[in-house]
Each structure stands twice: as C-alpha cells, then as structure tokens.
C-alpha cells in the first residue's frame, strides 16, 4: 500500500532520514521504533507531506505522492496523529472530527461521526473546547478520532501511547486493536515500549540515525544485537 524508495531528508547538516526503502502492506499493523532523534517523526512528516524529502520516491496505493500537497495525501487515505497532540484550536471536540470528516472525505456523515466519537471514548466531551478542556489521554484520543474521521487507509500513529498511565494505556491498546478490525485500517505506529510493540504488531522496523537497521517479527528484531546496541547506546549518550 505504501512504498518508500531511497527517501532522504536532511536538515542542514543532519540527515534525519537516510536513503530509506520500506514497504508497508495493506491493513498491517507495523511498529516503528528507534532511539530519540532517529528520524521516526521526520519519516511521518515526509509521508504526510509536511517535509519534502531531498531525494527518493513515495508511492501510496499506486499514486506517486512525492509532490502532492498535504491535504491531497490526506484525502487519498493517509491519516496521521502528532507526537505532541495538535487539536484544532478554537473548535469543540465534535467540530474537530467534523472538519476532518468534511474535508478528508468530502462529505458529512453525522452517524458515522458519532460512531467515531463513541469509539475513541469522547462522546461525553463532544461539546468541549478541544484546545483547553481536555486531559492528555483525551487529547490523544482526539488525535486518533480526527485521523479516523478522514476515513484513512493507512494511519500513522506517533507515540499515541506515550505518557498514558497503565490502565489508560491498556484501554488505548485495545482500541487500536479494535480499530484495525473495525475500520480495516492499516497502522504504522511509533512506540518506544518494546512490550507494547510486541503485543500490537506482527512486524517491526527499526530506525537508527535515519537508517533502517532491522525489519522483521518483534521477537526476532528485539533479539538483534545491533538493535539492542542502538537502544542502550542512545540511553547512555
């Protein structure tokens, strides 16, 4: 569904994504891990169009989207969340989803909107101001809700579980699993916690200094010496 070929993103002297080639199949749940600064978020930005790669190709469902504007990629079915939640400010929770649905899919479907609100557990907060009246877990749920409202085929989740306490995290993980089943959406999820990744994903890819250093089943990948070194190395740095 998504093919990246030799994608490179540089910021001045920093090569955030380095000649990366990767293919994500339809309705898979894939983990994306790597130490801080490995280029994970930058890769999401390149896929969703917020940064332009200096080189490479990005093909989504047989459409070359490398030069497509951000909004068109969203309409093609690329949804994403932000590592630091970015609610649409000055709008209510429901209006957040409404804008996403109206512009992401081209039309409004109120019952589906309510279904998504319910699914992410925000029905009771629907009338609240999205930028000032939500707790972190609700902001994270709103990130997912907004993205779902665009009716995505592939959802890029950037550390949606980070910062949640244990029960909240467990509930959220169940939600992600259900989402995959219920909405038939493919997921690429950035997450630091190895256990979480092993639980959610059949496949995990590892980035280090912008390079892909491992790709495979979680239990194999997390046994890989290079992967362990990149993690512990980064922690000691």
């Amino acid at each position, binding site marked *: 569904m998504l093919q990246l070929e030799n994608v490179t993103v540089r910021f001045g002297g920093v090569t955030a994504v380095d000649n990366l080639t990767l293919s994500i199949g339809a309705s898979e749940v894939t983990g994306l891990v790597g130490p801080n600064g490995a280029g994970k978020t930058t890769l999401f930005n390149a896929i969703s169009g917020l940064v332009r790669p200096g080189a490479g190709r990005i093909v989504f469902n047989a459409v070359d989207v490398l030069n497509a504007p951000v909004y068109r990629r969203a309409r093609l079915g690329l949804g994403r969340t932000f590592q630091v939640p970015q609610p649409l400010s000055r709008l209510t929770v429901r209006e*957040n989803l409404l*804008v996403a649905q109206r512009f992401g899919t081209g039309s409004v479907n109120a019952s589906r909107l309510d279904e998504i609100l319910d699914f992410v557990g925000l029905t009771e907060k629907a009338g609240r101001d999205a930028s000032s009246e939500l707790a972190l877990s609700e902001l994270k749920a709103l990130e997912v809700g907004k993205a779902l409202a665009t009716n995505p085929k592939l959802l890029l989740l950037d550390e949606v579980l980070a910062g949640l306490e244990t029960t909240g995290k467990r509930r959220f993980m169940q939600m992600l699993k259900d989402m995959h089943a219920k909405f038939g959406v493919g997921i690429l999820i950035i997450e630091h916690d190895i256990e979480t990744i092993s639980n959610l994903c059949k496949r995990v890819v590892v980035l280090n200094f912008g390079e892909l250093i491992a790709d495979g089943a979680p239990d194999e990948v997390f046994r890989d010496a290079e992967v362990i070194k990149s993690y512990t190395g980064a922690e000691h740095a």
Partner: protein
Amino acid sequence: MDARRISVVLAMVVMYIAVPLLLGSNLYVMSLLVASIAIGGVALAWALLGNLGGMVSFGHAAFFGVGSYVSALLTMKLGVPVFAAMLLGGVGAAVASIAMLPTLRLKGPYFALAILAYAQIFRILATEWKSVTGGSGGLSSIPRLPEIAGFDFGSKIGNYLVIVSIVLIFALIYQRIRASHYGTALRAMHDSEDATRVVGVNSTLLKAMMLFVSAFMTGVIGAFNAHYINFLEPDYGFSGLWSTLPIVAAIFGGYRTILGPVIGAVFVYLVDQLVFKSFIPSGHQIMLGALLAGMVLFSPTGLLPWIVEKFKRSRNAPA
C-alpha cells in the same frame, strides 16, 4: 420572538424607513451617512479577511481603487450599465488580488509590509497609464447610479439605499461563510495550520478564497463610490485612507463581530466630520488615533460587543 430577531427587525425599519423619512431631505447628513456606510463596508471586508483568512491587510486601498477604476472605465469607455459595472469592479479587484497570492506565504509583519507596497503599485499604474486612466488628471463625469422603473438610484436617498443594501448583503455573505464548514476550518487554521492540512483541508486555497471575497467586496464599494462622487483620480482612489479608516472603524466597532466594523465606521466617521473637523480643520484624522486608543482602553473588543454586553446585563439584572 427573541431579542436578536427584534433587534434585526428594528434595525431594518430604522435603516430602510426611519432614516430616509427623517433625514432624507438633509443632504449633508445623508452624504455623511453614505460615506460612512461605504467605509463600513470596506471595514467589514477587511475584518472578514482578518477573522476568516487570518490576514491583517494594510492594502485594501488597492482593491478599493481597482474597483472604482474598473467600474468607471467600463461605464465610460464601453457603455456597460452602472450596476453591472460595479459587480465587474468587484471582479476586477478580486483579479488584482491574485497578484497578491505569493504574499500569503509571508507571515505577520512581512505580509503587512508586502501588501502595503502592493497597494502603491496600483496607484502608480493608475497614474502612469494615462491613455486609459487619464493619469493624475483623473476621470470626471463618471456616470451616476441609474433611474430604474421610475426610482432614481442616483438621488441622495437612492444612493443611501444602494449602499445600505450592498453592505447588508455583504454582512449576510460573511455570516454564511462563517457559519459554514469552510468557516469552521478557517477558524481552526490560524492556530493549527499543519493539523488542519493533515485532515484534508486545502488551507492555501481557503485563505486565497477569503482574499478574493474581501477584495471583491471592497472593489464593489470602491465602484459604488466612483459612481456616487462621479470623479476619480489616483491619489484619491488609491488613498491610504481607504486602508486606514476601515481598520480604525473595524477595531473601534469590534472587528470580531460582523456588524461591529460598520457601526464603528458610522460612529467614527460622524464624530470625525462633525466634531474633530470643526476644531481642527486640517489634520483632524489624527484625532482618530486618540479615539481608537480610548476605545481599546475602554473596551478592548470594541463598541458592538460592549453594547451587546450592556444590553444583556440590563435584561438579566434583577428589577
């Protein structure tokens, strides 16, 4: 009937019946009203661009001038009927705003400076393109508003009714855009542009549309003004006052509201012409700065929100 409806009906009665009946014979007062409402229309268009498009413009004089020249020239050189030419004047201003699209990439003060410079380009064009615009000598004998079905739109009352109706229609358009899904997306865009784009909003196009709408409205009012005063020269049509007076009026009246800018324009213009001008015949506009500063200190959100607040409080207050 709720208070809102009542006030709308009252305002309509005042504007369409009471004012013409009571003041219609006073040519001086009518001319002040027409001028102030015209400025109010530009102020409304300016506020629309600010509120919905998120852009602060110091260049609305360009749209005003382009609208007035396009309409005047179409009627004079090609014999286009005046009302049709006024609409085309608005279209002309919207087309002129296309040249400004690159400035949308600029943020804050850079955008403001770019649009300021842009307004000057059109003034220079009107001055130098003598064969068409008559150069700095200007255009005179611009056709007045026509007589249709026995009613003379070119009379003082006719002019008044036309500008009131234009501004009301613009207010309705503004209200409809604001209440639409586009309005919701635009509201979200200012603080979270990336977040709106990743859910499928073409933010650049939406902003450009608001620029077109605002330019169109301003151009129509510039065109009206040309046919109202029947005379045009570059320094007048593109005068910086068409940029600054609406800003003062909008902020004074309450730029976050739809009608605040219009009410602000009428108030500010009347005070300026009736009070300040009699004390300081030349340079009286400087007092507008003081007036504005006073209002911002008194009620930062402007006159209209203050009135609404007062009104609500007096209704809710225990007897």
